[in-house]
């Protein structure tokens, strides 16, 4: 097996990154922040969609690769993987040992066995695997964590959360490529935040999952209500529904309400908006001016490579969050709580 330490440390003043697939729209945001950073070179773009990959490569004036092997041969330090969920595993397995670090879009994979294989292969080959959970870098969420850690709430009783979204269509509604619908798409972000803020695990989950409740003929779940118990005694819920129609002012939300013996902290991570009414759009839209978590995420990934340190969000974090999403589906099938 190849070893990740293929380039000498002197090369690290410049970090060379390749982007693998733009199937997930977050890639557009990552490339935006990546190309604004000093000391980072975008080495090229691989995409199995020739039109999409070629267009973006031309836009950023970098080489386009129709095969992932071609981009992996470009002496990369880092690989950012934003393929369809089910294709994370083959790309990570291929890149492991050829780069110092991988930033893999969430969810880590569509099955636990794929996720575990990715973690194992990266560990064996010395490649650092980071999972893309940008909400950890959202300033309102960071403020929530610091408030919680201050102990101001006293004993914490419950955490009520939502990660609403718009129905994304495309491969996101293809069970084979996405691994599920709204539940797998939107469970992992908030579960990761909760695990991170309280350093705890979800030990039991109950879920009501709705199929085609909001989008007739969709063929997959578009509504999810998860009810969970944490190891530290806190209970809570999470709404993962794709319940924001095209006429809604924004794509969705991440909201966390924490209730404790002394009071309440409410966080609405995307509530820093201009209200823009446009005849063109035919509606009033929220235009966010807050600091994007994606900026912090990408900077953290590059810093991990440059400093040779461990990822701040690792493969295990990604796998634990995936396990909760998969347990939610199982709970919905059995109509009873599932232990983790």
């Amino acid at each position, binding site marked *: 097996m190849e070893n990740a330490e293929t380039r000498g440390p002197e090369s690290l003043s410049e970090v060379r990154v390749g982007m693998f697939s733009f199937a997930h729209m977050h890639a557009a945001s990552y490339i935006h922040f990546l190309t604004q950073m000093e000391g980072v070179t975008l080495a090229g773009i691989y995409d199995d969609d020739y039109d999409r990959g070629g267009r973006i490569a031309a836009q950023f004036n970098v080489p386009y690769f129709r095969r992932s092997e071609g981009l992996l041969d470009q002496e990369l330090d880092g690989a950012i993987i934003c393929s369809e969920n089910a294709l994370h595993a083959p790309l990570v397995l291929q890149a492991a040992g050829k780069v110092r670090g991988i930033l893999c879009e969430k969810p880590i994979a569509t099955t636990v066995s794929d996720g575990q294989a990715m973690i194992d292969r990266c560990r064996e080959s010395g490649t650092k695997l980071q999972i893309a959970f940008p909400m950890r870098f959202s300033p309102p969420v960071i403020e929530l964590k610091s408030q919680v850690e201050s102990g101001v709430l006293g004993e914490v009783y419950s955490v009520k959360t939502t990660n609403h979204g718009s129905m994304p269509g495309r491969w996101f509604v293809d069970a084979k490529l996405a691994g599920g619908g709204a539940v797998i798409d939107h469970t992992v972000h908030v579960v990761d935040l909760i695990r991170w803020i309280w350093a705890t695990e979800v030990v039991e989950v109950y879920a009501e999952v709705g199929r085609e409740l909001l989008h007739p003929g969709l063929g997959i779940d578009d509504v999810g209500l998860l009810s969970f118990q944490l190891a530290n005694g806190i209970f809570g819920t999470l709404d993962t529904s794709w319940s924001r129609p095209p006429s809604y002012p924004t794509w969705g939300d991440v909201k966390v309400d924490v209730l404790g013996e002394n*009071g309440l*902290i409410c966080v609405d991570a995307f509530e820093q908006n*201009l*209200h*823009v009414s*446009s005849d063109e759009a035919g509606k009033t839209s929220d235009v966010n001016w807050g*600091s994007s978590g994606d900026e912090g995420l990408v900077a953290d990934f590059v810093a991990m490579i440059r400093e040779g340190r461990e990822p701040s969000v690792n493969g295990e974090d990604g796998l634990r969050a995936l396990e909760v999403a998969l347990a939610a589906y199982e709970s919905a099938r059995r109509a009873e709580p599932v232990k983790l």
Partner: protein
Amino acid sequence: MKRVGIVGAGGISRTHADRWSRMPGIELAGFHDIVEDAARGAVQRSGGKVFSSLNELFDAVDYVDVCTPGTAHVGPVVAALEAGLPTVCEKPLANSVADCEQIVDAAERTGTPLFVAMVVRFFPQFAKAKQVLDSGAIGAPGVIRTVRSGSYPDAGSSWRKGLAITSYYADFAQSGGVLLDLCIHDIDYQRWCFGEIERVFARGMMFAGKEPKDHALLTVRFASGAVGHIEGSWSYPRGRFSTRIEIAGTRGIIEWDSRARQPVEVAIAREDGSLASSSSSPTAPQHDPYYAELAHFVSCAEAEEPFLVTPYDGLMAVKISRAAIESLETGKAVTIS
């Protein structure tokens, strides 16, 4: 490593020093102030050394940051430019149009980079509104309204007490009251968004003998034909500081209000059963507007690129503020020459 020296040790000096102190690649060399005790206090707080003269400071730095009151900008700014040191000048560029012209002349004559710290252009919500406007999403510009209203800046702020600047704001002949000190932000922002301002008309309390309270309502007419409204106040109740943006065009409108719901809201019961509530709207450290404007200065100075705010922009903002004061005095609309 680039060394920065700050001239002036009052309020904005402290804000800038805090940002310089956490900027990679920058060393805060120290302070010069005509009140040496003030410089010593600043050094105790922020580090660096006390420079007893401007020349001593100039010899020890790569960049100069002038944070004196607007009445005392022209001396240190022109001297720094003549010494060839890229310079930040806090707004207003100067309190008189004549001083501004002298500074602009010095910048042109020496070719030394001069950045006017019009910080509102670096507030993320104001920058985003300009970006949305420029994208064409609301069509052609028609009416712009902005608000910048709070209580008088001195009272209750204990750190400022005892500094030479304490009476500066209340002396409207010196500070120019809200029109020159506060509305200048909105004048510059509106001019940045909508282009040159042709005419201004103002009503306000500057000459009403209610110092230190002041309050002004301005209307402006742009060369494009568009119009603008500005409210600036030092008369709002304490704790009610608010800013607002409303930009209307032929095809839409942009709105923002600082008093809208905040992303983080905390409600805690005190021991006596009363409620302690607070809210905040945090952003990443590099998007703090004071940090962002100073980082912009450094990156442009190093790359020898033009600044987002030019000396001419600084001059025009003061010209328009002064025209607004003239309008208050005369009761007439004043055309900007």
